[in-house]
């Protein structure tokens, strides 16, 4: 079902101020570093905390309505908060939190029995859900007898079995090792993709028949892979505010600012198109790209992956006037995703190189080097206004749209 969220939460010095909508069957990834307010947002949607101000509407039903106490005109509508167990919102965190005293089957059946379904019917449906996550032969085991990955798969079955209107995943892969994380991610993608098609489960006799509308899904993560694999849209959260939101390819491929770029592991430098071939940055570096540049005079973002940056000792190799290269001083060498990550003094750019290359050049911190970039790896696009777009909603909501707060200003 359609979800409209407009929240203001104060927690000491931290403020969460977000406004977002997710369409039925759509998956939104919330990407942000620790402490950016992702989990707080999910807790508010799930009804586990009451915001200081805000509205949460799911499928036309107001679940949370808290008017600003300081605004008398706003306080006309009475405040309301539907308790967590009546919200039909499923929440899965990084810990599976399977009930330790119940078998896997009883865990999955728990939500159905809470809905008043008889024990035998609940178990039959639970068994189907456990089959769906590929653990049919483990149905009668206690959680303690399952591996971490298996527990999380049962937890997925348990939350899906209740057929919630909204699905919230809070870093569901974070506590798993790489192999299990990949397995669970694939499983989630399959399950989420299922819902885009008409809910066949109802025809198969599994559905309750009451929710023919696919749920809206929000996946909180700090892992870009999760966003790429699972999400239709991505929102980037920084210190309690959404700084960018849109389709995955654009938000992750053309980051709005340095923060977003760093989060997705890209270098970003802002500049202005100087000639049809060259971009000039305020610090005097010049970049070219193999792709067509925007018109001369456009303010642009220049983006390239750290692996496209080559570092060499020889000062003379590329002429200093050449684009895509500059002199720099090595600041730090640290482990990176694809080898060793290099950072430079007074620069946001990072490079990544295989250890063998560094060994061959005997590079260490403090060395003066020449950095150069493969023009094929450079992407240049007009700088995006640092204001979140109005969320694109594929389906028109049946209810009047919830009033949104003013456009969020950015740092």
């Amino acid at each position, binding site marked *: 079902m359609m979800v409209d969220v407009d929240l203001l939460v104060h927690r000491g010095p931290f403020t969460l101020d977000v406004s977002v909508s997710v369409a039925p069957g759509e998956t939104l990834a919330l990407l942000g570093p620790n402490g950016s307010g992702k989990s707080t947002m999910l807790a508010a949607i799930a009804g586990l905390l009451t915001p200081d101000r805000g509205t949460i509407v799911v499928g036309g039903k107001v679940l949370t309505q808290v008017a600003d106490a300081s605004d008398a005109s706003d306080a006309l509508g009475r405040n309301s908060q539907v308790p*967590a*167990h009546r919200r039909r919102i499923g929440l899965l965190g990084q*810990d599976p*939190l399977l009930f330790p005293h119940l078998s896997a089957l009883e865990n999955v059946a*728990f939500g159905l029995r809470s809905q008043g379904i008889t024990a035998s019917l609940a178990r039959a449906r639970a068994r189907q859900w456990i089959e769906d996550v590929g653990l049919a032969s483990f149905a009668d085991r206690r959680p303690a007898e399952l591996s971490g990955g298996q527990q999380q798969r049962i937890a997925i079955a*348990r*939350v899906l079995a*209740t057929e919630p209107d909204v699905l919230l995943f809070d870093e569901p892969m974070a506590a798993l090792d790489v192999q299990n994380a990949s397995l669970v991610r694939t499983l989630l993608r399959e399950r989420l993709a299922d819902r885009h098609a008409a809910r066949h489960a109802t025809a198969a006799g599994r559905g309750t028949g009451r929710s023919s509308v696919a749920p809206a899904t929000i996946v909180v993560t700090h892992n870009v892979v999760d966003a790429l694999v699972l999400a239709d849209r991505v929102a980037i959260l920084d210190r309690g505010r959404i700084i960018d939101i849109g389709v995955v390819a654009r938000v992750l491929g053309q980051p709005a600012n340095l923060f977003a770029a760093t989060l997705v592991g890209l270098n970003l430098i802002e500049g202005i198109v100087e000639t049809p071939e060259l971009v000039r940055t305020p610090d005097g570096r010049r970049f070219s790209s193999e792709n067509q540049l925007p018109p001369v005079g456009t303010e642009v973002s220049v983006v390239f992956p750290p692996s496209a940056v080559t570092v060499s000792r020889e000062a003379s190799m590329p002429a200093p006037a050449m684009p895509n290269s500059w002199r720099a001083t090595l600041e730090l060498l640290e482990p990176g995703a694809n080898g060793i990550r290099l950072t430079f003094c007074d620069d946001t750019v990072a490079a990544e190189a295989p250890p063998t290359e560094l060994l061959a050049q005997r590079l260490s911190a403090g060395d003066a080097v020449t950095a150069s970039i493969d023009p094929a790896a450079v992407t240049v696009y007009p700088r995006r206004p640092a204001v979140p777009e109005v969320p694109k909603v594929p389906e028109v909501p049946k209810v009047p749209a919830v009033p949104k707060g003013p456009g969020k200003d950015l740092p």
Partner: protein
Amino acid sequence: MTVTETVTVTSTETVAAIKRSPIRTGAAIPRLLYIPAVVGLALLILPIVGLFLRADWPRVPAAIMSVEAQSALGLSLQTALSSTVLCIIVGVPLALLIARSGSRVAGLLRALTTLPLVMPPLVGGIALLYLLGRNGLVGSGLELAFGIRIPFTTAAVVIAQSFVALPFLVISVEGALRTAGTRFETVAATLGAGRWMVFRRVTLPLIMPGLLAGTVLCFARALGEFGATALFAGNAAGITRTMPLAIYTAFNGAGVSQDSAIALSLLLIVVSIVILFLLRSWRTTPEL
């Protein structure tokens, strides 16, 4: 070069030895501490050993099978069981209230709950008498309105036992509730379970080990209760004379030998141990 190699080998062995050490029993305790530990054990065990040695064994069966002993044992089991049930019914909700309160309220409630624990049972008996006695705060009203008199009845025994035993149950259940936390309850709520459903199917099963431990403590305390019972319920044979009171009576009794007091004590010890073991074996089956 050889030197460095030796060093490496030694350090590897040391690491391995450190990793093994926790498995070797006793390795971590300073030897000096064995002495007070053994003294403590002796303090607990020797009096009971003394009792067994002092017993006049040929006369024990007769003393145990006597009508007085049987009636006292029956009354003890009946009242201790009743007060344990009463403690569970009121104690679990009380523990829940404490565990889910804010830290200040919880601290106050916990202090009030543990008061009977630090109070001499005799004082508890006097307090109960002044509350529920004929001229007591509530007692006078009860007698006027319903003609109910509580002191010196079997009900008084149950109330006195509950008064002293309840803190044991509440404290262990509250500890279990705190350990269990609220995370599973939150998950249950997001799965659609209402408060009763969460309490019945999540909270209660999760605290079951703590509840059983608390029940054992509570029952044991009720079974051994003497002071409050003696003052509030008196010492009427068959009505309020539980095992501890029967033992006291036999010990001080005119004409009766102290041997029957010892025999009754042995009986109470054996009954306690049997109950403890029954509950233990029951407790290990539902593994958590």
